[in-house]
């Protein structure tokens, strides 16, 4: 909103609405934050104290401890926690890197290059985005299990394929990120093509044009694509939970899933202190990413959400 618009809005609107805004926005905001506040407070408990205390809405530990927070990096309470954290981080960085690369290159191809069937191919790819991805989960499991020549398989059978290996996380990397491609395509179409031509006249090759001239212009949309991809992968429990089994391959979300009633079976008494530690490990970095880059999230959401 420009300065003149907000000035005119200030003139035009009357006070009761402002009062309502100043009351409702912070109050509901506090209610929305409450589960996270609870999570942080519970994070200061030792396992023994949490189990022994009658937990109230704002639990305050008698002997606050930082062990749970330190565990994420050092593994003081549970060696595996640091490993889950590392796995989550590696997987997120890897997938985000590829999302940036494939979105940018894909966007360039569909925005700038002219070839037969371009628009049809793009529409086909875009149309697949409306198919619910749940349909692919079981077939993906079967495909991974029957992956040729991997994990003791002959052509299709005999071993476990690439299930329960690092390949589960790696294989999807180079696949084209279709939503990202769509966003970059839209954003590139606003860049005048004369820029490309001028660069070529000045002797820039395709690689230079792509990465030194066009890429820097796409930084805001690339930021949005990387943040949403990173948050999605960081929070994803499906891939590790369903396609891996070994402890050393688990990430923070899948580790929580295994501790929850979904993984441990209904009625199992949950190890809440460990769950809270892992939850903090997932939530705090996600919040940090959000606070540093929220400008791009707001912009990007407006771009994706409100497309005329």
């Amino acid at each position, binding site marked *: 909103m420009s300065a003149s618009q907000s000035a005119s809005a200030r003139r035009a609107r009357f006070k009761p609405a402002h009062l309502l805004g100043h009351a409702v926005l912070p109050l509901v905001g506090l209610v929305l934050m409450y589960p996270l506040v609870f999570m942080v407070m519970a994070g200061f408990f030792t396992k023994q104290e949490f189990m022994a205390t009658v937990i109230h809405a704002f639990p305050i530990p008698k002997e606050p401890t930082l062990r749970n927070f330190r565990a994420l990096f050092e593994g003081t309470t549970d060696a595996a926690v640091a490993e889950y954290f590392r796995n989550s981080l590696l997987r997120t960085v890897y997938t985000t890197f590829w999302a940036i690369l*494939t979105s940018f290159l894909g966007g360039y191809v569909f925005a700038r290059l002219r070839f037969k069937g371009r628009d049809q191919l793009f529409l086909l790819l875009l149309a697949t985005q409306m198919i619910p991805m749940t349909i*692919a989960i079981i077939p993906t499991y079967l495909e991974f299990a029957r992956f040729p020549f991997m994990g003791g398989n002959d052509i299709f059978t005999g071993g476990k394929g690439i299930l329960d290996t690092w390949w589960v996380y790696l294989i999807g990397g180079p696949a084209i990120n279709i939503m990202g491609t769509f966003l970059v395509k839209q954003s590139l179409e606003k860049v005048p093509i004369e820029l490309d031509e001028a660069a070529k006249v000045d002797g820039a090759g395709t690689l230079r044009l792509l990465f030194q001239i066009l890429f820097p212009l796409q930084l805001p949309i690339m930021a949005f694509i990387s943040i949403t991809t990173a948050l999605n992968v960081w929070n994803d429990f499906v891939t590790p939970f369903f396609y891996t089994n070994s402890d050393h391959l688990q990430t923070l979300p899948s580790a929580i899933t295994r501790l929850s009633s979904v993984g441990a079976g209904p009625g199992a008494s949950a190890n809440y202190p460990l769950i809270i530690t892992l939850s903090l490990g997932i939530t705090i970095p996600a919040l940090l990413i959000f606070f540093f880059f929220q400008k791009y999230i707001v912009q990007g959401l407006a771009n994706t959400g409100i497309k005329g």
Partner: protein
Amino acid sequence: MSHDGNGVALAQEAPGTPRSPGFWKRFSTMHRDALLATVILLPMIAFWLLVSGFPTLFGFVLGFFRWIGIADQPKFIGLDNFVHFFKDPTYTNALWRSIWLGGLVTCITLLSGFGAALLMNLPLWGKGFYRSIWYIPAVTSTVATTQIFNIFLDTNNGVINNILKSLGKEPIVWQYSVGWGIFWIVVYSAWKGVGAAALLWLAGLQSVDQSLYEAASMDGAGSLGKLRHVTIPGLKPIATYIFITSLISAIQIYEQVLFITNGGPYGKTEVLVFRIYRDGFWDFNLGMAGASSLIMAIIVIVITVFYYSWSTSSDRKTTIPLKKPGRGV
């Protein structure tokens, strides 16, 4: 395709900077784009087919087979799985529940998000901060935050039951009650979705032609009058978009069902996507999982196609007249 040789030549040409207007220029006008597109797209689409395209297609095909247990031989049974789907009330109930639960969640998040967006659109001090705070639940992990809800809802040492006990009331066994299960699923979904809905509405509000507001105040419209005669009609196309996309994702909700009620008690809180998981991963009924996924996909596609045909036919009606009363900006 024998593009490889040329692709290599192109790759060598790319980093260099010689100006060779003769051959390359002629060549580039004819084939360069197609070759470059092939070199870039081929590997990306091959990997996409491997991890996404092929499994999706495979998933559709699964629905026409009886396949129970991975070791079983799949047997083609035509439409039997789909017939079974509509005969077995646990499936039709799950489908129905997906639809009304999704609709309920969509309405609650969009209505409260709209109210919030109206307030966030005021020139308030600290509105950017409020916007961030409201959006935070959306970036948290469902797995992590549902566990916090589970600590609230624990039967023996849960926060809510402890509060009830301290007030001298009977603790509630939430897990035994269908109504409470649905209630907490809806509360969780609204908690998570309201901030994102507010942001979408906010972007929509700011896209409404601002000059219309001035025109309306000159005509003597108050705040409510402007809301009714400018904001709401101006938002119509965007509102439909927001409603449709929210509905499509809300009818596919399953994670909160998985972690909060796990479908219980007695499968009475199951939604269709949750049922797909249960069939696929716990009962290994791969054929029924495929058939249910296909039905879900068809519903989503039908909604989308209806929306697109509606929006392309009504765009002219709703957006173009809007521009007329505005004085040229």
